[in-house]
Each structure stands twice: as C-alpha cells, then as structure tokens.
C-alpha cells in the first residue's frame, strides 16, 4: 500500500474498530491506538526522509501523489488526493511526534476513566484527520478533514459532558469555528467557479490570473475559515473555554496541531494572498490584534490552563504576522517550535493538575520543590515561549520580528514586541505563582509517573533543539531564514527579560497576587472580562438567537398555521352558509330557478348585442 495512504488510514481504522467495539473491550485494547500512532510516526519519518533536505531530493524522487475519485460531476471525475511535499512532510513530523507523546501521556493521565476507550478512539480519528489535512493535495479533502478535526475537538472538549461547563464549551467551540467554516466553504465555491478545480497546485498556479478582486475575496474567505480554526480575534472566544476538555487532548488539539491548521491553510495558499496583496495586510492586522489582546487577557487569568490557552491564541497571532509578511518560513517556523514547547507546557500543567487536583494558580505554590522533573521541563517550555536564548522560541519569534521590521511594518512590529513583553510577563507570573514560594490551599504536590514524565522530557529536548534548525528549516521549505541579528535579537531579549522581571517583581517570592488586584484599574476590569466579547457572544448572539427562535415558533404556530387553519375554517363556514340553500324547501329552489333564468336571459340579450 502507498505510504501516503497508510499514514492517515491506520489511525482511522483504529477509530472504526473502536467505534464498533463495546466499551469493555476497547478499554482492554488501548495498545491498538498507541501502536497505530507509533506506526504512523515511523511511516512519517520515512516519508520525511524522502523529501529531506530539500529541493534536490524532492526533484530526485518527484512529488509523491495518490488520488481517489470521490465523485463525478457532469462526467468529469472529482478527485481528492494526497500529496507529499516539504510543508506536508514537516507537518507530518509535528503531528505524529506530539501525537505520540500525548497518547503515551494519556495512558496514565486518563487511567481509570470509564470512557477511556472512546477517548483513544477520538484521538485516533483526530490524528487521522490531521494527517489527512497536512497531506491533502486538494482543497476539498483539506476542508473535509478540517471539519472532521472540528468534530473530534468538539467530542473531546465535551468528554466530561455530564459537566455543564464542558458541554457548553463543546457547543461553543464547534459553532464558533463553524462561523469561520462558512467563509471557507463559500471560498471553495468561489474557487470552483473561478478555476473549476480544487487541486492545490492548479489553483495556486492560476491565482495570479484571477485579478486582484477575486483573489482578495477568495483569500479573505479562506482566511475567515483560518480565523475560526486558529482562534483569531474575534473568533478566538471558543479556545479558552475548550480547556474544559482533558488536558492531554488540549495539548494535542488546542495547542500544537489543530489550532495551527489555520496557519497551515494560509501558508499553503499563500500565493492567493500574494496575488491579492490586501489580504496579506488583513492577515497582519488580525494577527497583531489577536497577539496583543490575547496576551493581555492571558496576563490576568487565574486558571493555569486558561493562561496557556490565551497564550496559544496570542502565539497563533504571531504566526499569522509571520505569514503576513509573505514569508512561509516566518510563520511555519514558529508553528514548528511552538508545537513542541506549547504541548510541553500543557502536559506539564496536566502533570501539576493531576497531582494537585486544581487548576487555580492561586491555590498552588511551591511545586518546584516536590516535582523536580516537571519543574525543569516546564521551565524549559516557559523560557522557550518567552523567547529566551538559546531556546527555540527565541529563534522563531525573532524570525517573525525580523521580517516585520525588514518589510517596514513598524507599527505591527511594535505591537508584536509589546505582545512579546506580555508573553514573558504572564509566563513569569505563572511560573512564580506555581513553582516558587510555599504550598498554598492545594497542598503538597507529588511527582507524576514515567508515562507522564517521559513524553515531557522528549518534548523539552525538542523545545531546546528545534531552534538549532533555523537555517535548515528555511532551506527545506525553500524560503530563506537567517540567524537572529545582534540588534534584533538583542531588542527582543531585552523585552523578554523585562517581562520576566516585571513578573518577578509582582509575583516572585510568593508575593500576594491579590495585592496586585487591589490596585486594579478599569483596564484590568475590561481585560478580566475578556473585553466583553464572550458576553456579547453568549448573551446577545446565542441568547438573542434563542429568543428569536422562540418568537418565530410563535409566529409559525399562530400566524402561518393560523392562516392555513383559517382557510379551513372559512371553507367550513362557507359550507354551513351554503347548506341552507339546499334545505329541501321547494320555495327556495323555485326562487333560485327563476333568478337563474333571469340572469341567463339577461346574458343572452346582452351577448347578442340587442
């Protein structure tokens, strides 16, 4: 079998099998999804090796391609296809490595859950969908797997669905992302009407001939889809709530892979954005706005997972800023490093939550002394995210800043720098609250087992090492990358250090965070209320829709059905009245006959024109 088909198919088959098996059997067969994941990982490495290290190798092997006719429209086959290129190979690695880490980790984290078999089934389906998405050779298959990922996200967020918060969050996540998908779907329709194909190379190859208006429209419609999936302002509101799902699932789906799919979509279809020009500006602006707002909201959260969720939103904004400069590497390199350090941070947070049974940072403290491995790995993740040399986040963030400066986007650059400052601040705030000081309400922590720790160690290593690939990375994707320059790197380091410094000043040495809150201003209030966006979405949009639906129901019942019934009643009334004419009274009949004769005579006379 073709290796490209096998990579996503194997986890998909595990899902189908688990779907059919009863719960008890699933629970005993957890080796299957993990084994499938391992096979996919190995196959992905093999696939990667056929295209690495770059153009020459690719030319030598030729692009690997396989297609399947899903339908036939007007006699013309409609194909969906898998295609391996550098971008796809890179994503394969990210997805399978993080996926593997999460699956091993979950064995311990989800142990004893009644529905653990279902959890693994959905993880497998997700993996299959994400692998299909990265390999998709056409936009139709891309969209299909995109939607299936959305379903898996929905199912995992609602995993503990007897909990109100979880079932609310799941529906909010699906619908908010689907708002974006509406744009994506219409973009595809526009694409089909323009090019008559969904094949990615065909579409991208013709993008420059569409004219800027069409290119802008299609690019923005696709980007709207990306905004939903990648949680960009103002469609970001679902991601923080999505933290109601199991933490390892958050690490995989809501940090490393699925939420990055929007970035991947824009990277894939960058020629359309370049043909438009305007669309690139929009990507820049949305990315910058999101990065800053999310970083500010992350700075006031008390729930450790929510801090990380806002951080993810903010970092996705960075990736979009990178792509907004028109450079694939700038966006994708940050996606690559972020996948490792952010999933590491989530898994670390999970390890802490697993031990302390709370997500509230105000109840934590002093974890550093009792959970050594977790502390070290989490610190690596923190430094990588904050952009400290020599951790990977420094290199990838610098690449974005560097391109922003070079392309002359000075305003965006300063927004990015401010976001980077806040990033370092909220991570320091988190770190000092959780790891330093003395244990608070949640009590003493104890270290997790090796199933939890070993994936974290692997991801920590990758978070350190990924930065070293800066040059190779650009060469591989065919868009230049450079080491950070002294000035740019220096500036970002100063910013990051001062963010950490502020965090230490406010929260170091177990300082009381409530004191900070006491100095809170209006700004603080607005930020803690998430700029009132969630309020608007939930109260006015969702609530308003509910009220509208109730009103329309009333209208339907009373007015439309009322008219229909009214017609029926009117007929019956007419019948009741007319019935009197046929009561069997000869006098009435006689009168009618006379009247009828008179009328007929009159008509006859008039008709003959006398």
């Amino acid at each position: 079998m073709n290796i490209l088909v096998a990579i996503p198919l194997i986890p998909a088959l595990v899902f189908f099998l688990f779907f059919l098996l009863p719960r008890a059997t699933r629970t005993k067969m957890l080796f299957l999804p993990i084994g499938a994941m391992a096979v996919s990982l190995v196959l992905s490495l093999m696939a990667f090796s056929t295209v690495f290290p770059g153009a020459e190798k690719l030319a030598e092997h030729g692009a690997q391609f396989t297609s399947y006719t899903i339908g036939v429209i007007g006699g013309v086959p409609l194909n969906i296809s898998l295609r391996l290129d550098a971008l796809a190979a890179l994503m394969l690695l990210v997805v399978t490595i993080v996926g593997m880490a999460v699956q091993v980790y979950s064995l311990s984290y989800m142990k004893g859950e009644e529905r653990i078999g279902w959890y693994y089934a959905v993880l497998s389906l997700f993996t299959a969908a994400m692998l299909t998405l990265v390999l998709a050779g056409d936009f139709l298959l891309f969209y299909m797997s995109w939607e299936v990922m959305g379903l898996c996200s929905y199912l995992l967020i609602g995993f503990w669905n007897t909990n109100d918060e979880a079932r609310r969050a799941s529906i909010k996540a699906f619908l908010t992302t689907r708002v974006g998908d509406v744009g994506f779907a219409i973009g595809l329709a526009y694409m089909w009407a323009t090019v008559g194909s969904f094949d990615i190379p065909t579409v991208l190859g013709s993008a420059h001939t569409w004219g800027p208006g069409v290119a802008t429209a299609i690019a923005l419609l696709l980007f709207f889809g990306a905004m939903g999936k990648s949680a960009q302002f103002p469609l970001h509101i679902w991601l923080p709530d999505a933290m109601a799902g199991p933490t390892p699932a958050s690490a995989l789906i809501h940090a490393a892979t699925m939420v990055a799919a929007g970035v991947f979509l824009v990277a894939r279809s960058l020629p359309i954005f370049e043909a438009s020009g305007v669309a690139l500006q929009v990507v820049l602006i949305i990315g910058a706005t999101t990065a800053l707002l999310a970083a500010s909201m992350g700075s006031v959260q008390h729930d450790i997972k929510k801090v990380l969720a806002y951080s993810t939103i903010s970092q996705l904004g960075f990736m979009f800023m990178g792509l907004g400069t028109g450079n694939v590497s700038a966006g994708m390199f940050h996606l690559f490093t972020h996948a490792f350090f952010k999933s590491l941070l989530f898994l670390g947070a999970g390890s802490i939550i697993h031990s302390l049974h709370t997500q509230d940072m105000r109840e934590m403290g002093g974890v550093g002394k009792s959970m050594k491995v977790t502390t070290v790995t989490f610190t690596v993740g923190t430094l990588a995210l904050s952009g400290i040399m020599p951790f990977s986040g420094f290199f990838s963030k610098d690449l974005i800043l560097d391109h922003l400066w070079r392309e002359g986007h000075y305003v965006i650059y300063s927004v990015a720098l401010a976001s980077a400052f806040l990033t370092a601040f909220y991570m320091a705030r988190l770190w000092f609250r959780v790891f330093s000081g003395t244990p608070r309400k949640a009590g003493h922590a104890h270290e997790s087992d090796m199933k939890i720790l070993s994936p974290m160690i692997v991801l920590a290593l990758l978070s350190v090492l990924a930065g070293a690939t800066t040059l190779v990375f650009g060469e591989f994707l065919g868009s230049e990358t450079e080491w950070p320059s002294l000035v740019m790197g220096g500036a970002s380091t100063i910013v990051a250090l001062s963010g950490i410094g502020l965090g230490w000043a406010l929260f170091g040495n177990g300082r009381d965070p409530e004191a900070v809150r006491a100095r809170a201003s209006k700004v603080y209030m607005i930020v803690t209320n998430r700029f009132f966006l969630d309020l608007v979405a939930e109260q006015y949009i969702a609530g308003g829709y509910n009220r509208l639906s109730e009103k329309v129901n009333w209208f339907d019942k009373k007015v439309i059905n009322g008219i229909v019934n009214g017609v029926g009643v009117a007929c019956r009334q007419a019948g009741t009245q007319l019935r009197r004419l046929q009561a069997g009274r000869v006098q009435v009949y006689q009168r009618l006959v006379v009247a009828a004769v008179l009328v007929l005579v009159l008509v006859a006379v008039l008709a003959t024109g006398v």
Partner: protein
Amino acid sequence: MPILSIIAFLPALGAAAVMCIPNSRGLSLAKWVTAGFMVVDLVIVAGMALSFDRGAAGMQFIEKIPWIPSFGINYFVGVDGISVTMIVLSALLSLIVVFGSWSTDHRPKTWFVMLLLLEAGMNGVFMALDFALFYVYWEWVLIPMYFIIAWWGKEDRSYVSLKFFLYMLLGSVLILLGILAIYLHPQGGTWDMVELANRNFPVGFQMWVFGLFYFGFAVRVPVWPFHTGHSDAHIQAPTAGSVTLAGVLLKTGTYGLIRVSLPMLPDAAHQWAWFVGAMACAAILYGSVVAFWQPDLKKMLAYSSVGHMGFAMLGIASGTQEGLDGAMILAFAHGVITGLLFLVVGMIYDRAHTRMAPDLQGVGKKAPVLGGMLAFAAISSLGLPGLAGFAGEFLVIVGAWKSELPKFYTVVAGVGMLLGAAYMLWVIYRVVYGEPTETVEKSMPEARPIDLLTAGPLMAITVIIGLNWNVLLDFIDPAIKILTQTLVRS
C-alpha cells in the same frame, strides 16, 4: 421480465397476502409476511440497480402497454439514474420501518397492509412515465399515509390527518391542472413524460404552468410557508409514518420538479429560478431557526427537514450540474439520515413516553449506545464530511455560487450550514449530554438487537455514501447531465 412492475406490485400483492391472514395469528405472522415481501422487493430493487446500465443515457427497463387507449393513456414505466436512487431509498426505508415497528400491537394486520401499500405507491411514483399513471401514484401514496396518521397517531390524529390530506390534495389539484394544461396545449397532446420534454412549449405558457407545478410540488417538499401540514403531521404520526413521510414522500416533491418542471418547462425554470431560490433560502433560514428552540424532538426534526429540503430546492433553482447533483444526493441522504433520526427519537419515545428535550437529558450516560446513535445521526445531519449529509450540501453551495443566482443566496445557504449545526448540537446538548433526568434514569434501557438492526444499516449507508459519493453520483450524474443540457439549450 417486467422488473419494474414487479417492484411496484409486489408490495401490493404482499398487502393482499397479509389481509388473508386470519386475525388470530395477526401480529406474529403479519410482520413476518410483510418483512418477507419487502426483503424480496428490496433484493429485486438491488438487482435492478446493479443491472442498470449507468453509462447509458435515457430510460431503461421500459414497459409500455396501452391502458386507456381512447385517451392515449399508457401503462408506461421506466427508470433513469435519478429514479433508481429514489426507488432504492423507498424500498430500503420501507423495510427498515417494518423493523422499527416490529412490536406494533394496535391493529397489526392493517398496519402492515398500510406499510405495504405505501411502498407500492412510492415505488410507482418514481417509475411512472405516463402523466396519468404518475398522477395516480402521486395520489395513491396519500391514502395509506392518511390512515397511518389517522389510526395510529397521537391524540390529535383525526384533525391532523384530515388537514394533512386536504393540504396535500390542494397541491395535487394544482399538479393535475398543470398536467391537463400541458395535455390540452396544441403542442402537448400526449401523456408521455419523456416525449413532453422535447416539445418546446411557448415561454408565456411555460411561465404560468411552471407556477402551477411549483406550488403543487412545493406543498409536498414542503417549501416555506406551506410546511405546516407536514409539521403537524409529524407530531401526531407514529414513528413509521414520520420516517416514510420525511424520508421518502417529501422527495416526491423534489423528484417532481426534476422530472416534470425542469425538462418540460426549461425556459420558465430559468426565469423563475430567482423565485425558487429565494423561497429555498427562506426555507433554509426559517426551518433552521424554528428547529432550534423547539423542545418537541419530532417537531424539531420536521423543521430541520424544511431547512434541508430548502438546500435541495436551492440546488434545483441553480440549474447547474453541481447544484442538481447535490440536490439529488441531498434528497437521498436526507431520507437516510432523517429516517435514522426519527427512528432513534421513536426508540427514545417508546421508552420514556415523552419527546420533550428538557425531560430527556442524559440519555448518553444512561444508555450510551442509544445516545450514541442519536449523536451519530445528528452529526450526519449537520453535514459532517465523510458522512452522507455533507456531499449534497456542499455541491449545492458550489452549484448555487456558480449559477446566475444572486450570490447572497449562497451566503444564506452557508449560514444555513451554521444554523443546521446549531440545532443538531443543541439536541446532543439537551438529550445526549448531561446528567440523566429522573425520567431517563427510570426508563431508558440500552438499545436492543432489533434497534441495532433498524439503525445499523442506515448508519452504514451514511458512512458509505459519505466516503464515496459515486455510489449515488454514478447513477445521478449522467441523468442530470442530460437535464442540464436541456436547460442550457433553452
């Protein structure tokens, strides 16, 4: 071998056989005899579909014998790819419904007779190629449906069955007028529906006849604002009635438009497209909005059908290959998925004796398989790629954008996708998820083998079509291509 006649008359023969069963052995024998006839019928239908030449254009398995020679009326049946898919749907759902009502204890003999007669009529309507025969079958299906609602319905059954019947009859009268207008037109003069597609009626004539047919078919589909006959009927009808009504009977409406209005009146179809499209958009929005709040699950499904059939109507209005292909896939997929939804809701109702969502929270925890089936059906219905619901909706959106219809129609359809997800997820939220209510805790045993036998095939078909649209498109696409060429020529 007159394979089509066998397909249509075998269930009627079965009905006669069931009537001969002595009352003492009513239920136990009647259901087996019914299932036997329907299985055989389904096998023959499958054989017909498999031997159908998918590459060839035009009608196949034609049978034509004089019926009422003095009026030139023939018994004329034949199928193209569109008909084949619809007959498969009809035979399939009819059988599934027998399993779904396996333990009917109220007048069981009559019940199964009605199901058999219903299938006979539905099979017939999709193969009739003579207008008179078409109209006979068109009316035929209403009679068993009337009795199914009137005798096995809920409290308000007599009012609702009458209303449903009269409403449908009103639509039928318009269609009859349309048929007569075409027959009496100098260029008409035949009942042959294949021949009439070549007659090029004058545009002025087409315009008003199209109107007659449109409103006639719209009542059946149902298109907003003619949907209240259906929604009331669903509330009162027994599960089997709802499954066949939503699953197959509605499709006779879209089928009629594709078989009659578009090929015979192509110019009018083009001129009226903006109106048909606008009404379709109204149905999409209206159906989805009403479905959202609706606590009664069956009523909610009735309105979701209004929304989904709105998509099919938009595809028909587009007049494009993509849109019409999509409309037909959607018609089939909606039959399977909505059938599944009604069946699962029926299973829940049989256990809890309520269909009110607020009373039913937590089915998923109490009965995971049953809740899972409902969630599966809901997710197929909201158009998840890889399941049957997606292909039709997507092709309709693509086709609508490509056509000359205003672009905002497509945007409305896109919003419809979102609203469709909203009400279906809301069902999962309210019924499958959450802590079980007292009602559910007391009354919700897990799915039985017969339930799995009922729902399983439909779930499997949903997956198969979702992963390979060609299962349907191989049949549909060539027939639609001939149709779109007619539309282009006009």
